[in-house]
């Protein structure tokens, strides 16, 4: 880097970046998270499964054998679509949720991806042109927002209540987007144990949502990372189990087994599947053969359904601890969801508070969460935040809520002193 009298921006490439990435800059909130992973901080941020509950010795032995005995194939290139063995196992997994041969699910139509995130990126690359609209729940998964925004699409949100996406609001949104002259390419939805809101689309609404989309000729991209992590009975069947056409189904082993392996998938109609494979080959050539072999062997030889039960029990206990602590400790005016599965609780602070602005205070108090604005494309969610319960022990969760409650109390007090709380928003229950 040469420093000249005309100055330097320390970026010799500034005028060469694509439009897609020009808006991508680090934020101070992102930097604050550097502290969140320190052991001194109780992190209610993140979305990590509790992989320490896995039989790590047995998994380690399995991985060792895959290299030692099958290295000639597991350490080699694979094919773009993913190994046939894993695609068959994936179909067995999906069949447990009702996505089976009867609704046209076949290993031929599965595309293995590098985690759920690549699945999202593939769908974005397959369908989205700059300016296209994606309709999504508000709030929605931050990684999906990133993938859609990288494709220069606009995300328009539809609100949820405790039964999930509100069908009437979906209808209105579709009409509003159409009236504005823009083209909505698909509905992106996480209907079961939604990230970040923790709510589940009810049985009745699933059919309504599918009907609305069908009538509007709107594709559905169903993201289902958490469907098998319910702890209050069976979740309603996925949307893809109800409709053969018009639904792209995405899932991952990141929450049910191990995110470190980075294996997810898309179940797509045949014509689109061919294109997905080509797009994926251009991106990554092929998913990791070793990771695919690891998942295949895990599903074939280890008691993975028992492991799922274990995850569910652990997460139920942790959810209960988090909800109990919230109920006992959080200041009046704070509300939160009660998830029946998944990893997250969505909390709403008293009106006038700003969860993002409160982050430094929280980190000073050694507790971390994810501010709500990141889960909206339109800057909403100022007084909302996501709390994760899968990773920390019940004791740590209680301690985290104790610290968080203190932070919220201080913030309320301070804002009250400076008159920055709305007059009708002081300490009122919603």
């Amino acid at each position: 880097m040469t420093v000249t009298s005309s100055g330097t921006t320390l970026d010799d490439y500034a005028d060469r970046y694509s439009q897609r990435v020009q808006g991508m800059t680090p934020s101070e909130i992102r930097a604050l998270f550097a502290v969140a992973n320190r052991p001194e901080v109780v992190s209610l941020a993140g979305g990590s499964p509790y992989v320490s509950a896995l039989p790590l010795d047995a998994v380690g032995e399995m991985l060792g054998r895959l290299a030692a005995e099958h290295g000639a194939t597991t350490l080699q290139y694979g094919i773009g679509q993913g190994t046939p063995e894993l695609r068959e196992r994936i179909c067995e997994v999906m069949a447990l949720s009702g996505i089976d041969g009867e609704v046209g699910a076949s290993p031929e139509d599965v595309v293995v991806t590098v985690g759920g995130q690549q699945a999202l990126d593939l769908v974005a690359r397959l369908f989205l042109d700059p300016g296209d609209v994606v309709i999504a729940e508000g709030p929605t998964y931050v990684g999906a927002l990133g993938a859609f925004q990288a494709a220069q699409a606009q995300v328009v949100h539809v609100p949820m209540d405790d039964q999930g996406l509100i069908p009437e609001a979906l209808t209105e949104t579709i009409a509003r987007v159409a009236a504005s002259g823009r083209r909505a390419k698909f509905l992106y939805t996480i209907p079961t144990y939604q990230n970040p809101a923790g709510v589940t689309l009810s049985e009745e609404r699933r059919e309504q949502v599918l009907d609305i989309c069908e009538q509007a000729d709107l594709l559905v991209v169903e993201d289902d990372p958490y469907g098998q992590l319910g702890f209050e009975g069976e979740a309603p069947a996925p949307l893809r189990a109800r409709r053969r056409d018009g639904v792209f189904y995405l899932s991952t082993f990141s929450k049910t087994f191990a995110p470190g392996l980075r294996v997810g998938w898309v179940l797509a109609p045949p014509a689109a599947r061919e294109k997905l494979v080509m797009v994926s080959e251009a991106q990554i050539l092929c998913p990791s053969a070793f990771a695919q072999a690891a998942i295949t062997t895990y599903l074939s030889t280890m008691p993975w359904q028992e492991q799922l039960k274990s995850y569910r029990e652990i997460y139920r206990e942790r959810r209960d601890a988090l909800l109990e602590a919230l109920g006992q400790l959080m200041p009046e005016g704070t509300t939160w969801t009660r998830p029946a599965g998944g990893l997250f609780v969505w909390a709403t602070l008293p009106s006038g508070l700003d969860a993002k602005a409160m982050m430094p205070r929280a980190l000073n108090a050694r507790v971390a969460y994810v501010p709500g604005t990141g889960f909206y494309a339109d800057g909403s969610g100022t007084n909302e935040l996501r709390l994760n319960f899968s990773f920390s022990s019940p004791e740590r969760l209680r301690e985290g809520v104790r610290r968080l409650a203190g932070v919220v109390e201080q913030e309320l007090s301070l804002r009250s002193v400076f008159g920055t709380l709305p007059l009708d928003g002081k300490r009122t229950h919603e």
Partner: protein
Amino acid sequence: MTPRVLVLAGGLSHEREVSLKSGRRVLDALRTAGLEAELRDADVSLLPLLAADPPDVAVIALHGAAGEDGSLRGVLDLCGLPYVGGDARAARLAWDKPSAKAVLREHGIPTPDWVALPHERFSELGAMAVLDRIVDRLGMPLVVKPAQGGSGLGTTVVRDPAALPAAMVSCFSYHQTALVERYVPGVDVAVSVLDFGEGPQALPAVEIEPRDGVYDYVARYTAGLTTWHAPARLAPPVATQVADIALAAHQALGLRDLSRVDLIVDPDGQAHVLEVTVAPGMTETSLLPLALQAAGLELGEVFRRLVLRAATRGDQSAGRQAGNAPG
């Protein structure tokens, strides 16, 4: 014998990420200069390490309280480990902006007029009444910043009194005491000061030209968002004045080895000191490395010389401990 160096970086402050970048850069530079160096976080593993395998010198690349408020320096004094940079007392003084500004003013060094108040005073006396008095006294616009902290975190330029309460709330999220300062328009410059044992020397001033007009956290650490001019585009007499004021600030605060003095040069060519940093950033977009480059100096060689200088203080550390205990 070549001293073994321990670079301390990370910590639990809001500037952890910046610190890790600074630390890694200094580590690479020291190794390139031929020194044996290791990078560690300042956590529970530090003191056992110092006891079991003591290095010869520490380089503190910790930003935020742990690295800059003098307390860790006091602990290193207790351990008898010399370090590069100002001692505990001087660091504590520079770290607390109102205290530092008071010392600068006593020494006749220009610094914008200010008021510093903890949040309790606002709740006890009535926030609006206190803010009114502040505006009456300092006028508008104002700069609100945490009394302690760096990287521009929690700092807001307030041009409209109606925006003052929100700026105070944002500031108090970082620290319990706010420094409200008269806003001085002008050119932002930073002067790095080095002392290899022959007296402090000012490096060429670096001028800061943020693309969007505000040198906030993002503008500081995102390549492409700020244009830096090194040396600053100052008329020679102004450049001399800026260097003299920076050296005076370094000395008034009792600093040693290195520091960075941030100033603003007003439209009349008068420089005002905004703050002084005892652990300047060393990232790829930081100001001290830019100044070194403008001066034709290598980061590794500079730190090698500072480390050798600090090593000579090792034998004297026992005698200093009482005066430099953490406060």
